[in-house]
């Protein structure tokens, strides 16, 4: 009942100010990206070439796919810390199957066709994701701990299988296709990994915005789990499937990274967990879930990538990269808290009346 006094004010502002505010809030991340992009175009002549713009897309592709899965998980108020391990694991798995033996150095012997190797690696990702989802829902285990545990397990397996070195492959068949480029005009071309990422985003958008499954995901997030269950939604099934999606997408990203590097190594996914969470939050999906979406996440990925690339073009020592990534992540979470209106002295004009 404490909320009552705020009703009218919200009601009125829903029409004019509210719409404006929502448009700005929705465009916010995009405007930030645009600003950084233009800034870099001005500051660095080297950045203005088709090659470096293509590189930006290429560098964003794998992490974008991981972050897409992360968006699903965070949408339901969960979190998946195992994604970077999954990227490494699926790359290592595919590489070993293609190379046919566990020899660091990349001897091709007795391997299976790349397409099967990739399918096996990706299916493994899906199954492991589903399994984590089952532990989280059926045994009511904390997602933070479960996925952190699987992070160690998957990294450990990758390390054991590779003895800490990379398993090298020769690109052929599917691994060749997914690393190709689609030529556009002149020097311009579109890296295939990014096209794959775009496709995945489009499908995810349709699922989240236009299908029952997606609506239920929104419903479960934002503390709506009990209300969703009492509305007849099979909450457990949705949650298990979402962890499956995250595993699947991380595994797909793993195959992309491995194909691009021609090497499956346990370091392939380094940092991807943190970056994916930061991208989701920067993109407007709060850590409690229930709102936001995948396109925002893609903008989030671009923002992080352009900052990283900008440092390269502006000759910032590469050792400082970690610091900047860390700062971005902390800022992203701060942004999340501010957006939620949790900080009383910083409400961005969005006064909360209710308690």
């Amino acid at each position, binding site marked *: 009942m*404490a909320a009552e006094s705020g*009703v009218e004010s919200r009601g009125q502002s829903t029409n004019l100010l509210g719409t404006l505010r929502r448009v700005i809030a929705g465009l916010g991340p995009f405007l930030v990206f645009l600003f950084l992009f233009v800034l870099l175009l001005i500051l660095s002549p080297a950045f203005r070439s088709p090659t470096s713009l293509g590189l930006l897309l290429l560098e964003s592709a794998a992490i974008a796919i991981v972050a897409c899965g992360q968006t699903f998980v965070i949408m339901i108020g969960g979190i998946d810390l195992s994604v970077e391990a999954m990227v490494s694991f699926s790359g290592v798995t595919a590489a070993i199957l293609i190379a046919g033996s566990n020899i660091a150095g990349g001897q091709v012997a007795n391997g299976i066709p790349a397409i099967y190797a990739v399918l096996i690696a990706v299916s493994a990702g899906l199954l492991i994701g589903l399994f984590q989802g089952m532990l989280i829902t059926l045994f009511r285990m904390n997602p933070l701990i479960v996925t952190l545990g699987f992070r160690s397990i998957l990294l450990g397996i990758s390390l054991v299988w590779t003895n800490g070195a990379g398993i090298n492959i020769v690109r052929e068949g599917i691994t060749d296709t997914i690393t190709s480029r689609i030529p556009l005009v002149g020097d311009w071309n579109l890296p295939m990994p990014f096209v794959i990422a775009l496709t995945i985003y489009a499908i995810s958008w349709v699922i989240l915005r236009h299908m029952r499954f997606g609506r*239920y995901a929104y419903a479960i997030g934002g503390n709506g789990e*009990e*209300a*969703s269950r009492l*509305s007849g939604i099979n909450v457990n099934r949705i949650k298990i499937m979402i962890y499956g999606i995250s595993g699947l997408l991380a595994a797909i990203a793993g195959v992309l990274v491995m194909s691009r590097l021609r090497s499956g190594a346990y370091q392939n996914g380094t940092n991807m967990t943190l970056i994916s969470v930061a991208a989701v939050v920067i993109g407007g999906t709060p850590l409690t879930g*229930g709102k936001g979406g995948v396109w925002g996440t893609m903008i989030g990925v671009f923002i992080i990538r352009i900052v990283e690339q900008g440092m390269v073009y502006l000759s910032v020592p590469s050792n400082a990269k970690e610091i900047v990534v860390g700062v971005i992540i902390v800022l992203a979470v701060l942004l999340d808290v501010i957006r939620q209106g949790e900080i009383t002295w910083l409400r961005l004009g969005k006064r909360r009346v209710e308690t």
Partner: protein
Amino acid sequence: MAEQNGDSILLEMRGITKRFPGVLALDRINLQVRPGEVHGIVGENGAGKSTLIKILSGVYQADEGEVIFKGQRVVHNNPRQAQIAGITTIYQELNQIPHLTVMENIYLGSEIMRGPFVDWPEMRRRSQTLLQKLRLEIDPAMTLGKLGVGQAQMVEVAKALHHKADLIIMDEPTAALSLTEIAYLFQIINELRDSGVAVIYISHHLEETFEICDRITILRDGQYIDTRPRDEMTMDDLIRMMVGRTLDEQFPKENVEQGNELLRVEGLNQGSRLKDVSFSVRAGEILGVAGLVGAGRTELLRAIFGADPIDSGKFFVNGQAVTIHHPRDAIRNGVALLTEDRKQQGLLLHLSTRQNISITVLDTLVRARMLIDRRRETELASKYVDSMAIKITSLEQLVRNLSGGNQQKVVLSKWIATQPRVLLFDEPTRGIDVGAKVEIYRLMNSFVAQGGAVVMVSSELPEILAMSDRIMVVHEGRVSGFLDRAEATQERIMELATGYSNQGSANAAQE
């Protein structure tokens, strides 16, 4: 309203105005509270009660006007300052830490120290004294979470006494209390009054407000209406001043011809919560379920709906045996549950009105086997918004921002959309304005008039008595009796609810 009898004034609020963006929450409110007075503040939701006490307790600051407390003009910038000054607020949702002990809760933020260490023995001794003052037999070292809501609330009172409060504000103190606990709370309030402590009492229960308060201040739409001694007005006066119009009928009961049995429950058991519960409800019938807090009423509805697992029991819908393991099964069989806790369990607060209404029936709104048909979804939502007169600015308005009555109508819409035969309705009008209550009753009436059945759990006996065709009383997880509408009285319900069923039937025989 003018000062009377030259009585001393403990608190005076003059011309208090508070604006929130786009709304005038309080418009020149006046309030005078004397020492040793129990002062009620009543008004519909949105009248400004909460805002007013938040200003008093330092959560908000007034834009205009002044607060004079104990003869001095004061401005409290935060609850702590108000508390030190002698104003303590006991909120509806208790600000307690359940996993700490009773004494830790009482002394939270003002621990007794000896040097850098907490002086546990002294804290224990003093807590004991405070609790004894309230004649509470609670071990101060007990974990607070193990107490019932009633006792936990008494601990809050003890805490207020510890802070030497001159003014205690109680916001909906009885919302979660059983009748015995309410009686006990009133006794404590009376003792506080005798010792010169003033109490501001805010409640939706007008009967209670009438019973305990010396004077009552009425607010409406952020405006000050009047302050009157209780003895100088009737309940009708009070309601008229609150609502600003006369309510033709508080309970618009309609008699509906009853049809077939729609739901039958046989031998339902669930741990120690439900023991061998059997009953049935017919088309056109409203079955009221009465009982004390903790008697198992909510548990019963949840068990029927498949929200919690049961040990044993059979359900029959329309004469057919059905199995219900999950709310999905109940919905498929035409049973719907409107929960007591609307915000956490009934609504998806972060989603829009449209999305809330359609959530239960999305599978029927799908085209091409997969995609949600947005057009049909919008049609469905606007159909219910119109037919139930839900006040919203647009279908996309978040339900978080709706009033209690409109939220309840959204919950009702999402269930009516599933075309249920049986509504399990837990506390249908809790936290809802007097005006909106009548609308909810009318919607319930039209539901049974169209051949549905309602099982209505309520803690408000007048509501149970007025709206039910038949009343089932539960006591400690068992059905202690059924009463027909004609024979039901508050006293008979209370006899059954408190477990004096033998005496009850003896009394009945005497009558």
